[in-house]
């Protein structure tokens, strides 16, 4: 009896231990499984990010290749000096490939071309960066390895940290540069730089929602003894922050993760949380990527991320828990029985002959048993608590899971055995209707035999099926689900049932198709946009090449559209564009394409047009249809169109060439008289080449002293004296000879060289004014032509003040001459700048009056002091009475507005006589003096050497009352 009792206790004890052990094993294996799953998830994140880096590099590699080929091709064709080449090429390339942020630097670090639209807040820094030794470093490295380079993100986390930058925007707009040496004909020409915002790269994109917000991706950069970590701000999930960690201390997540190139840490405490962390250093970017997940924060964190595995883990745990519940309950019963038996035995002992020895032994045994029971009870209690905790958590998880996912359970044949409320909700069928029905009932892809077969086959193999399904609601609407099918397999390997977990992706799907449309069609007119046009043109050219057929491209630009927009407003302009688009659509055949390139530029693509006559018919139709008056609101408007035509294969062999040449032809059409069309000719290419040649010469022209400034007196008609001279820039190139301002000024304007040229002119002019003042003690006014681009130059004003102050001059020494072109350029800065000049005392002249729109409203609305009548009118006033009347009217009108009048291009005594009669205030021209050097002006000292002769021939008819001087 005694033996049995003690033996029973031990057996009971063993069973207890076994079950507790079983529970722990199960629990731990679940834990292990969770950990493994976590590791898998971390791996997946890192893996995806690396794949994206590889894709990015391949893409940029290709981009750089394409661009370099284009440049080489261009150089071969145009025989142009390379060092200043490709702003045109680059612009075209970037538009075509929709890459916006490209820079080309020459070997000395000068930016020679760029195409960018928006590289965020750091745009202004890029130029500086590459002018500095940054460029040197990369050029050196490029030569050092003959390979492309990827720069680390710029600015560095250290810089951001030290400047207290914690704005998400600024952090996400950090840039990385893909830098390739530009090699043409075995010469290093410079560097091509693609700038990309880190937020555009999946690799570096800061992720705030991995593993249901509990995971983190951190990026660590080291500088010196410190590490800077970019991570989600624990206090504000939507924000990022930068953490500085000293590496002198070797403990902690960050230093540990930097001590090895890659690795994993478990149970690492970071910011009060126990983490599982995995990392990999990215040598290309010189930063460490750390991905972390809270350790065993159970299912929630994984649930949304990897629902399938969670399902599996949940079922394992449920089985384990049920088993453990059951066994602990039955154990409790058995242990009570053992206790009872023991007490019985002790009672029994009292009655019998009890030797103290036996009693003692039994007493010890009892106390041991008691202790063990006590201990076992504690273990059980804690096990129970844990079980309860897990059960609760399971229920919560299940609830959370149901909230997010659309879940269906089906048997092996595809008959629904269960579905959650989310599925009823989205499908429109009640749960009771669903259960017992076949998948096939629910339309869409569930009726697609091929897809269903694929799913069922995959299930039968015990594999997981993932894909997108498109289904039909009860209401007939279509919806899309991202779907994962998971098979549950019997022990014999056969399929028991399957679970389908869906996520509704209908919105993304619809948004995506919208996006595709938006990416290819112009939102205003609904016509194909540039990208689609280029695509179609490429397609047409490929077909034409195959069939040896022809393609014609008509580049259409509306005449004076800008004027319409400026005078009647953008809405009006938009309406006009829509109407023109509609009309263009009406004139083309079905197989042709019409699209809008942007602004007021349209493109027609005509295939299979062998004869020029055919093309001309279309061109004529276009002009006629556009010309029909367009009524918008109460306005009726007639617009013209200029058309440039280029044809494949005669005028070019690829899209960009054809388009470029059509563009050139269009400009020609505008020049020869608008509202007409022009074919592309090689001449036009020569013009382009000449333009580029001049642009390339301009690069060093200032440094080499090729520019000079001449001055032409503006003479008072009454006194014959002058106190104003107009500054005129001249350029003599060592090879190209004298290049006329008419030719180079527009190019300088276009390329931006006008800014340094204007600065040079200003300095020369003020030098003269200073010398004049020194010599004569009086003020000389220099009239300087202002260019449209200067109005966009933020340094312009400051520069003028500085130059004046340096020489002890005042704003009265300057007069700016402005053409109507500047006013209608639509630049909003112009009005403000003119106002400011006027307030500062700088005089403003309207230049070349009569050649443009000669709009009175401009004269009224802007603070002009002087009106300069264009030489083309002055030259004919003697012969052409009409011109004489016009000039007279202009003078009268100007005087009426309180302006003084200068007649330009006065060459003969007769002209002078007439101007004198009409009380013109000032005259300028060869009759008095050609443009001369500053020294010559100083020599003249305000009096004209030949003026007495002029006066002798023409005695003024009475002294004018109107004898204002400039002061």
């Amino acid at each position, binding site marked *: 009896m005694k033996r049995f009792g003690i033996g029973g206790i031990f057996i009971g004890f063993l069973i207890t231990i*076994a079950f507790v*052990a*079983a529970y722990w*094993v*199960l629990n731990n*294996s679940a834990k292990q499984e969770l950990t493994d799953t976590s590791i898998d998830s971390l*791996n997946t994140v*890192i*893996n995806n990010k*690396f*794949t994206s*880096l*590889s894709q990015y*590099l391949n893409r940029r590699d290709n981009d750089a*290749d394409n661009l370099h080929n284009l440049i080489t091709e261009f150089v071969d064709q145009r025989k142009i000096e390379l060092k200043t080449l490709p702003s045109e090429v680059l612009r075209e390339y970037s538009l075509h490939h929709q890459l916006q942020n490209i820079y080309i630097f020459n070997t000395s670090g000068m930016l020679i071309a760029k195409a960018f639209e928006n590289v965020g807040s750091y745009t202004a820094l890029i130029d500086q960066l590459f002018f500095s030794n940054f460029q040197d470093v990369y050029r*050196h490295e490029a*030569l*050092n*390895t*003959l*390979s*492309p*380079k*990827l720069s680390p993100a710029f600015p560095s986390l250290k810089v951001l940290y030290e400047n207290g930058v914690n704005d998400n925007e600024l952090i996400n707009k950090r840039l990385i540069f893909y830098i*390739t*040496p530009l*090699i043409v004909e*075995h*010469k*290093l020409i410079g560097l091509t730089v693609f700038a990309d915002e880190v937020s555009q790269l999946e690799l570096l994109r800061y992720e705030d929602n991995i593993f249901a917000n509990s995971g983190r991706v951190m990026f660590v950069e080291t500088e010196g003894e410190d590490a800077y970590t970019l991570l989600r701000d624990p206090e504000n999930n939507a924000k990022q922050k930068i953490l500085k960690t000293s590496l002198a201390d070797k403990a902690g997540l960050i230093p540990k993760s930097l001590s*090895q*190139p*890659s690795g994993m840490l478990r149970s690492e405490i970071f910011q009060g949380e126990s983490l599982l962390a995995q990392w*990999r*250093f990215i*040598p*290309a970017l010189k930063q460490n990527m750390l991905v972390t997940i809270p350790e065993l924060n159970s299912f929630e964190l994984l649930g949304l991320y990897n629902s399938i595995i969670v399902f599996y883990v949940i079922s394992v745990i449920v089985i384990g828990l049920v088993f453990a519940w059951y066994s602990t309950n039955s154990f409790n019963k058995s242990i009570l029985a053992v206790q009872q038996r023991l007490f019985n035995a002790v009672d029994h002992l009292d009655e019998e002959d009890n030797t103290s020895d036996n009693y003692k032994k039994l007493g010890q045994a009892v106390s041991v048993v008691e202790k063990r029971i006590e201990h076992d009870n504690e273990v059980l209690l804690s096990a129970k608590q844990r079980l309860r905790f897990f059960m609760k958590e399971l229920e919560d998880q299940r609830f959370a899971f149901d909230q997010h996912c659309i879940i269906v359970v089906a048997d092996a044949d595809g008959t629904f055995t269960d579905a959650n409320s989310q599925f009823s909700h989205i499908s429109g069928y009640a749960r009771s209707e669903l259960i017992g029905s076949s998948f096939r009932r629910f339309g869409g892809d569930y009726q697609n035999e091929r897809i269903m077969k694929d799913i069922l086959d995959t299930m039968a193999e015990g594999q997981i099926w993932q894909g997108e399904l498109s289904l039909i609601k009860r209401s007939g609407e279509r919806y899309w689900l991202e779907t994962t099918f998971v098979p549950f397999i019997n022990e014999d390997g056969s399929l028991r049932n399957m679970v389908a977990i869906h996520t509704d992706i209908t919105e993304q799907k619809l948004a995506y198709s919208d996006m595709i449309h938006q990416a290819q069609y112009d939102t205003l007119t609904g016509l194909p946009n540039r990208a689609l046009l280029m695509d179609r043109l490429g397609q047409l050219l490929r077909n034409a090449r195959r069939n040896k057929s022809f393609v014609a491209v008509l580049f259409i630009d509306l005449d004076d559209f800008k004027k319409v927009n400026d005078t009647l407003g953008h809405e009006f302009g938009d309406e006009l564009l829509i109407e023109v688009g509609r009309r263009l659509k009406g004139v083309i055949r079905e197989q042709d394409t019409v699209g809008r390139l942007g602004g007021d530029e349209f493109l027609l693509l005509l295939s299979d047009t062998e004869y020029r006559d055919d093309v001309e018919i279309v061109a004529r139709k276009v002009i006629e249809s556009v010309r029909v008056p367009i009524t918008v609101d109460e306005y009726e408007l007639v617009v013209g169109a200029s058309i440039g035509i280029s044809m494949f294969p005669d005028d070019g062999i690829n899209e960009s060439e054809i388009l470029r040449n059509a563009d050139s032809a269009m400009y020609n059409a505008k020049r020869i008289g608008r509202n007409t069309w022009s074919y592309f000719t090689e001449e036009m290419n020569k013009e382009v080449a000449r333009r580029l040649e001049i642009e390339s010469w301009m690069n060093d022209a200032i440094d080499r002293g090729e520019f000079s400034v001449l001055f032409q007196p503006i003479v008072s008609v009454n006194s014959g004296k002058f106190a104003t001279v107009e500054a005129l820039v001249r350029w003599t190139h060592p090879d190209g000879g004298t290049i006329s301002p008419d030719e180079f000024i527009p190019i300088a304007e276009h390329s931006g060289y006008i800014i340094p040229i204007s600065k040079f002119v200003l300095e020369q002019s003020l030098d003269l004014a200073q010398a004049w003042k020194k010599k004569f003690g009086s003020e000389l006014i220099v009239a300087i032509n202002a260019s449209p681009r200067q109005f966009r130059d933020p340094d312009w004003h400051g520069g003028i003040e500085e130059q004046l102050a340096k020489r002890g001059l005042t704003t009265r020494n300057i007069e700016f001459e402005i053409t109507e072109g500047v006013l209608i350029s639509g630049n909003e800065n112009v009005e403000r700048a003119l106002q400011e000049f006027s307030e500062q005392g700088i005089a403003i002249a309207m230049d070349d009056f009569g050649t443009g729109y000669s709009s009175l409203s401009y004269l009224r609305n802007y603070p002009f002091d002087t009106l300069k009548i264009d030489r083309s009118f002055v030259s004919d006033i003697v012969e052409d009475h009409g011109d004489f009347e016009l000039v007279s009217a202009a003078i009268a009108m100007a005087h009426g507005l309180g302006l003084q009048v200068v007649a330009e291009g006065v060459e003969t005594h007769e002209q002078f006589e007439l101007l004198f009669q009409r009380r013109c205030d000032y005259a300028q021209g060869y009759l008095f003096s050609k443009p001369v050097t500053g020294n010559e002006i100083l020599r003249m000292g305000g009096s004209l050497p030949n003026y007495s002769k002029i006066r002798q021939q023409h005695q003024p008819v009475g002294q004018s009352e109107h004898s204002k001087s400039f002061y």
Partner: protein
Amino acid sequence: MPMLSACSSEKPVYNVGILHSLTGTMAVSESPVVLATQMAIEEINAQGGLLGRQIQPIIYDGQSDENVFYRFANKLIREQNVSVVFGCWTSACRKTVKPLFETNNSLLVYPVHFEGLEQSKNILYVGATASQQVVPAMTWAREEFGQRVLMVGSDYVYPRLTHEIVHDQIELLGDEIVDELFYPLGDQTLSGLKERIVTSKPDFILSTLNGSSNFKFIEIMNELSIYPVLATSISEEEFTGSTPQFPMYVTNSYFESLPGTKNAQFVDAYRAYAGKDVIVSAAVEAAYNGVKLWAQAVKSANSFQINDVKAVLPLISVEGAVDSIYVDINGQLTWHKYYIAKFDNSGKLRLVKEGSDLLLPTSYPITRTVQEWNLFVDQLYQQWQNRWEATPVIEVQQ
């Protein structure tokens, strides 16, 4: 309690191949590499193996003959069914077996620096490419010695292609190649070299000579004594017994004399394994790292399957003896620093220049397109009658 029983039943060993020359002219170079490979495997086994399995190397002797390499590679892959082979030294050998690994989807882990101009999803190149080694070293040398270089090399694929890359680089820099000579592998005369150097008076000499030609080369350079030499394929072995009488520089991604305790430990461990006086070459270090990289990939993929291993390779890195070794994102090449060392009077290499950063591996220098490079490589192959080297000088058997 089945769940309590330990899974301690013996799992079968996992076979891997080792294929290097243990006899013939390449044996001197390749035997230490085999030892390094074995040492790495033994270390892994001592720590419990991979995925619970012990790694068992199957070693074949390639006998310094490409045809033998081809035969044994075929045997390893097709008959022994290994998924990975650690092997090859010369580029000629690698190029010969490459198609075998590709058609059978097996992995070759290749431990030697090489010229690049090649890509294979079935080779893990643990050594540096030309763009990580010769090209930066040339930039250094031109600044150090001058812009006029004479190039001399053995007439097989590595020197030929390396020279071609250097040609492009020199042209870009506007420097001058004053003369260029190739000698068949094994040539001991180097006839005309001395005269051509004296005539052209280069600022320095780039040597890609391999194997026994180096002995004669050193002799000649000792006589001339003043010309600096930058060599890619010379080690301390060639100087055993003689000290260089001229400025002799070598470039590589590893030297045993590099500083650091980690390196000292590695050198000691290797000497303890391979022998007291052995020289620890870059290929030895790379071979050791190659095994570790592969093992890391197996662990990370939790699979020996070749496709699983290949899929994770881009994420793999190991701590090398000096620099951390990262597999590049393409999963084929590895990141390296370049080092330049000079032979001192005792015939030991002393570090003189260390590259500032790990360099991105690129197979194809940007001076030409991939197609152009491949075309050049193909033409070379055809020119040699479909071999990867010019006819070598046969040592006459007495």
